[in-house]
Every structure is written in C-alpha cells, then in structure tokens.
C-alpha cells in the first residue's frame, strides 16, 4: 500500500449562536508509512476527532488535501463510543459492516473472548464487551487503514490492558496502517511506532518522535515509565501537553 499524506490548511466550525467561526485545525501535515502504527497525542478536545472524521470521509467541509494512495484503502473506524446497532446481534453487527466469512468471524470473536456472546444483542453486553465488538467489527473489514479514537477510555485498567494487547496481536498478525488517538502517553508508548504530539487551538503538529523501545519490552510497566521520563527530558516542549 502507498503512503498516506495529510495536509489540512484549515478546518473551522461555524458557531450558529453568534455567527463567529472557530478554527480547529491549522496547517496540519501528517504522513503514514506502510504498516505503521502512529499515535496522535494531545489534549482531549483539541480536534483529533475532527481529524479522523476528515480522514474517514465523514467530514468534507475543510480546506486541504488528503492523499490516501492510488487505490482507496479499506477503512476501519473505531469510534469513541462503540456505536453498535442495538437491534442486531453481535454477529450481525460485525457481518453487516464487512463481508467476512463465518470462519474469520468466529476467529475474531474467539480472540476477543466473545464466542459465547455471538447471538447476544448489544444491550446485553457490558461496555467493555461492546468495545471489543466494535474492535472486532473494524478488524473484520480487513482494513488497510485503521482509525481509532480513544477506544479504551472508561474501561477499567485490566480490561484496557487486555484489549490493548489483543489489538497489538491482531495488528502484528496482519500489519496495516493505524492512526490511534489518545491523551494517555503511556498507552501511546505501549502501542505506537511513532508518536505525534499535537498542539491545540488550533491543532497543529508540535513534535514527532519515534518510539525506540523494542516491542518485546513494552509489557514492562517500568520500561514504559522510564521511556516516558526520558521523553520529558529530551523534549521539554511536550510537557505543556500532558
């Protein structure tokens, strides 16, 4: 797959109350290489969701250029909330969004620990389970580009850790481009090849840093913490973001 380049000159929202316009994104340049896992780190509410909506084609109202490569990539989008259809079963929710075979559906549900919930309706699931279904749905599309918008917020930390591990496992099994939005630096270090720090109001790139910590050592909390402290020493400017 080709690299993806993103140039957004301006994204503004019109405030209908007083007709003023508020700039959310200004001169943002990003690129994603093949099979790269990139984490976007910044304050909540700095415009990261707007960026993902532009990338996914949901929001067309901006000035700039998005180059997704010569062929349109298959996209998976894991939203901040699970966004499952409550009137369709878990299996239906996944198969509606993709054309995956029964076999790969069962495999995905199995690896997400959801094989018993296959015929359940989302209203019968806990939030953690619903999030896992949303992740399974995104993976079922066999995406070339996966967009994730703080998918693990409001999960308790053991569940979050487990689902994070699952995400990395699935990604390692079948690598593709991932753009992962978070405000949790430890989470970002655990997952990413590269970190992009974003300044807010309006949003623009502050710093790009490669995560040099080997993936094998990332289940070690101490190593993550050390890497994080070292980042603060090497790049004092990111302090203001966290």
């Amino acid at each position: 797959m080709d690299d993806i380049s993103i140039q957004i000159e301006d994204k503004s929202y019109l405030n209908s109350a007083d007709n003023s316009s508020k700039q959310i994104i200004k001169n943002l340049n990003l690129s994603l290489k093949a099979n790269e896992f990139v984490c976007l780190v910044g304050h909540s509410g700095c415009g990261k969701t707007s960026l993902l909506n532009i990338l996914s084609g949901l929001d067309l109202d901006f000035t700039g250029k998005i180059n997704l490569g010569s062929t349109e990539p298959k996209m998976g989008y894991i939203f901040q909330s699970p966004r499952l259809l409550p009137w369709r079963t878990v299996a239906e929710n996944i198969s509606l969004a993709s054309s995956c075979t029964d076999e790969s559906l069962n495999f995905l549900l199995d690896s997400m620990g959801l094989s018993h919930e296959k015929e359940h309706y989302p209203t019968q699931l806990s939030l953690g389970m619903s999030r896992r279904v949303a992740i399974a749905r995104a993976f079922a599309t066999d995406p070339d580009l996966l967009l994730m918008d703080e998918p693990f917020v409001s999960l308790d930390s053991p569940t979050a850790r487990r689902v994070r591990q699952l995400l990395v496992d699935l990604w390692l099994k079948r690598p593709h481009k991932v753009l992962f939005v978070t405000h949790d630096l430890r989470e970002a270090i655990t997952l990413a090849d590269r970190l992009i720090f974003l300044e807010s109001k309006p949003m623009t790139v502050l710093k790009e840093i490669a995560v040099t910590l080997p993936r094998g050592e990332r289940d070690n909390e101490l190593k993550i913490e050390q890497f994080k402290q070292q980042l603060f020493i090497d790049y004092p400017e990111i302090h203001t973001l966290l």
Partner: protein
Amino acid sequence: MRLQHPALQSSLSLCLLLLLWQGLAAVLKTATLPPPLLVMDILWAEIQSGQLTHHLSATMGRLAFSFSIAMLLGCAIGISLGLNKTLDRFFDSWLLIFLNIPALVTIILCYVWFGLTETAAILAVVVNKLPNVIVTLREGTKALDKELLAMAKCYRFGLLKTLQHVILPQLHPFIMAATRSGLALIWKIILVVEMLGRSDGMGYQLHLFFQLFDVASILAYTIAFIIVIQAIEFLILKPLDKHAARWR
C-alpha cells in the same frame, strides 16, 4: 380463587358491561336501547344473510387500500422532510394547513371535484390521513441517531442496507404510532365518506339504519366493527411489536 389472570380479569369486566347493558335495557324497556341478546340475534342473522359480510368487506377493502397509500406516501414524504431541512421549512406551512382542514371539508370537496366515485372516496381518506403520517415520520427521522448513520457511512453500508438495518429499526416505533392512530382515524373517516357518497359499506348501512331508527342493527354492526379492530390489533400489530422489541 384470586382474580389475577389478565384474561380472566378482562372477560369478567366485559361480562359486567354486558350485565349493565342488560339491566338498563330491562329497566328502560325502550326500542332505542335493545337488550344484548336481541342485538346478538340480529348480528347472527346479518352474518347468515351475507349482508354484514358484504358491507364489512367493502369497508375493509377501502380501508386497506387508502391506509396502504397513506402510509407509503406519508413515510416517503416524512422521511424526506426529516432529512432535508430546506424542504422541511418550505413545506411546513402546507402541512399545517392540511392538518387543520376538517375531514368533512376534504370529503365534500373530493366528491364535488371528482364525482361520487370510488377514487374520490379513497382520495378523501388518504388526504385526511396523510399529513398525520408525514408529521410523525418527520419527527422520527429528525431523531435518528447521527452517530449510527456516520458508522454506516464509514463502513460503506450503502443506501439499502442503511435503510434496512439502521434507519427502519429506529423509525419502527414511529411507524407503529402512525399505524395505530391512522387506523383509528381512517375507521371514523371512512364511515362518513361512505355515508355521503357510496352505496355500500358500513357507513352506508349505518346511515340506512339511522333513517329507520333501527338501533339494534346499528349496535350489531358496531360490535362486528369492534371485533375486527381487536382482531387487527392482536393478530397483526401486537406480533409486529413483539418482533421489533426482541432486542430490548
């Protein structure tokens, strides 16, 4: 024995109503309030002679036809207005006007303009019901979950899949509300339509009985009517509700 079973409760309360009717009729001894047994006799005789079946099926046919047209057209227009703000603002005043035209006026105008024909009768019923369906479905469409629509777009559901799996399940309660209020409304309007300009149907018959002051026959036809409405509720609407609520 305790009165807890719902079926037992409702049949007991029905019996009480019949008893009251019987008691009142026995005390008053007037032709304008015949006792229940006499009404049942007439009902049976009307069924046997085929009269009731003939007029009831004429009314049912008109009901089914005008109801289907009003629902299909109303859903299509209502959903379009709900999705398109400009269109909605433009036609809002039309809707308000049509909602407030008295049923009788529409019926008279239809007969005057299009003659005492079947088409005019159906049209009059549809025009009366349509604004109601449109408003209900428009409000339902405005309340659609934008996040789920965005999800469907992102995962390339396409129009048909989005309609079937995302939009219609959310509109179901609104469609059912329009159906129930629609049936109740159409029943009443259709009788007036038949009374004014048709030579068969329940409305025509009731009008005839009114001229003859035949209260027993009027009551017999009313009972047949109530039974049909209850049958529609229990055999069609309730199962539909149950099917749609299976995920709740």
